[in-house]
């Protein structure tokens, strides 16, 4: 057992790094979808904007560039989420699919604009100074930056969890996920809650893009790959649940990393196999926050 663990330590750590990143990405997607029935398919495109911002600010060359990329990505995400919130409002009484088509269209436009600006080559981004090397972890060599990514991801997970589960703002968000009509019947404008959650969720997506750039680089198509992973996390974790997004992200992180390392011939199957398995056992996800009412 210990031997197996040592042999696969790098894959396990990689799984945690991917899981941390996926959580930051998926938590906003999950809450907005669970709360407002807005399926934001532009979420992956916002991530990719963050990754390209890391390229632009040459995030790997200096800490200044890295932090500037993070700040600009956060601001971009906040604004983009706010604008998206306004754009989905006229469709609020239409079926979910109409809104999904709108956000899909936006994601295509964003991806095309990025491709025009940055071209179609894969752009790699080194980690910021001091984190671009590697360290010894239990006898294995491991990139320092990914260790930091795990730490930052878990820290952000803790912050998001505390805000959603322990503050009055979080109570409002959870109430909106459970039954938003009753929230509006209390005199609270649902649109403001959606605006805030979509803004912060999109901000986290763009920030995740910067954080992920030293691991994934930036390239056309990354937005879709990431979006699909995030959607799988949301479905596995259950709509509107922070705990679900965290567990789902950690599971998918390991499935992606350890699964690919141990069963490379099943790599493309194993992700969706996990999804199917969860859906068979728990059709509403592991921790559905959304409760149906009559």
């Amino acid at each position, binding site marked *: 057992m210990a031997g197996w663990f040592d042999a696969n330590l790098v894959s396990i750590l990689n799984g945690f790094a991917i899981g941390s990143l996926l959580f930051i990405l998926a938590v906003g997607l999950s809450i907005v979808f669970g709360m407002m029935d807005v399926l934001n398919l532009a979420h992956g495109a916002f991530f990719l904007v963050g990754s390209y911002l890391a390229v632009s600010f040459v995030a790997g060359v200096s800490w200044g560039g890295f932090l500037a990329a993070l700040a600009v990505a956060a601001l971009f995400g906040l604004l983009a989420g706010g604008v998206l919130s306004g754009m989905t409002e006229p469709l609020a009484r239409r079926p979910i699919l109409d809104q999904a088509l709108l956000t899909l269209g936006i994601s295509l436009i964003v991806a095309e604009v990025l491709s025009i600006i940055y071209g179609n080559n894969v752009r790699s981004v080194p980690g910021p100074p001091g984190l671009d090397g590697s360290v010894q972890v239990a006898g294995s060599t491991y990139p320092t930056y990914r260790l930091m990514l795990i730490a930052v991801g878990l820290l952000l997970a803790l912050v998001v969890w505390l805000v959603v589960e322990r503050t009055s703002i979080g109570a409002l968000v959870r109430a909106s996920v*459970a039954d938003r009509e*009753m929230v*509006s019947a*209390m005199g*609270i404008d649902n649109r403001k809650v959606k605006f805030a959650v979509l803004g912060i969720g999109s901000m986290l997506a763009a920030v995740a893009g910067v954080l992920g750039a030293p691991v994934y680089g930036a390239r056309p198509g990354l937005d879709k790959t990431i979006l699909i992973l995030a959607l799988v996390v949301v479905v596995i974790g259950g709509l509107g649940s922070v705990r679900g997004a965290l567990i789902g992200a950690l599971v998918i992180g390991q499935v992606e990393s350890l699964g690919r390392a141990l069963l490379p011939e099943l790599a493309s199957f194993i992700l969706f196999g996990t999804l199917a398995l969860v859906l068979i056992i728990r059709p509403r996800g592991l921790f559905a926050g959304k*409760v149906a009412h009559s």
Partner: protein
Amino acid sequence: MLEVRGLESGYKRSTVLQGVDLDLAAGQVLGLLGRNGVGKTTLINTLMGLVTPSAGSVRLEGADLAGRRPDVIARAGVALVPQGRRVWAPLTVAEHLALAARRGRGRGPWDTARVIELLPRLGERDRHQAGQLSGGEQQMLAIARALLTNPRLVLMDEPSDGLAPAVVDSIGEVIAGMKQEGVTLVVVEQDLHLAFAVADEIAVMDKGRVVHRSPTLEFRRDSSIAHALLGVA
């Protein structure tokens, strides 16, 4: 205080309310009766703004609320205790009360201490998630949530639904307590015993209209109305 005229409303393929007229004075408790499917819940949900009316007016102390968003109607002073209670299952009792109290603070006589005085059970359960409460406790939580917004008008949709008789009695006592505090109420009820116990007047709906209105005592005396409109003896 409430003046409803020619209210028509319904869902995509069917008009349920076919021109409802209804008046209510401040401090009055109106029992709204009628068979299943005559439009009682649709009326309540339309008054709250959860269903959009296609015609007619709803005036609360002069302000026209027909077709406004639910949050606007709520801020104008209307609160809902909905059918099925619809408490937020993952939130604790304390979180429900805090969320509602923040909306209603400084707008009227109800604060958390006073609501818990009326509904002491909630004080004992304040750390429990709403989803773990009994049906009666959930109903009390739904009432507390509405009261804490300090409403001028409370709409209650079948508060006795699915509750044991002893619990229904205590809900009746709570409504009586609200009435003593001067809360204006519309109570939709299938349980005639409860409706008679709390209402000053009875209105009966049939086929999307209010077809009868009389003081509770009169309504109880003349059993032919109840028989004809409700199908009960």
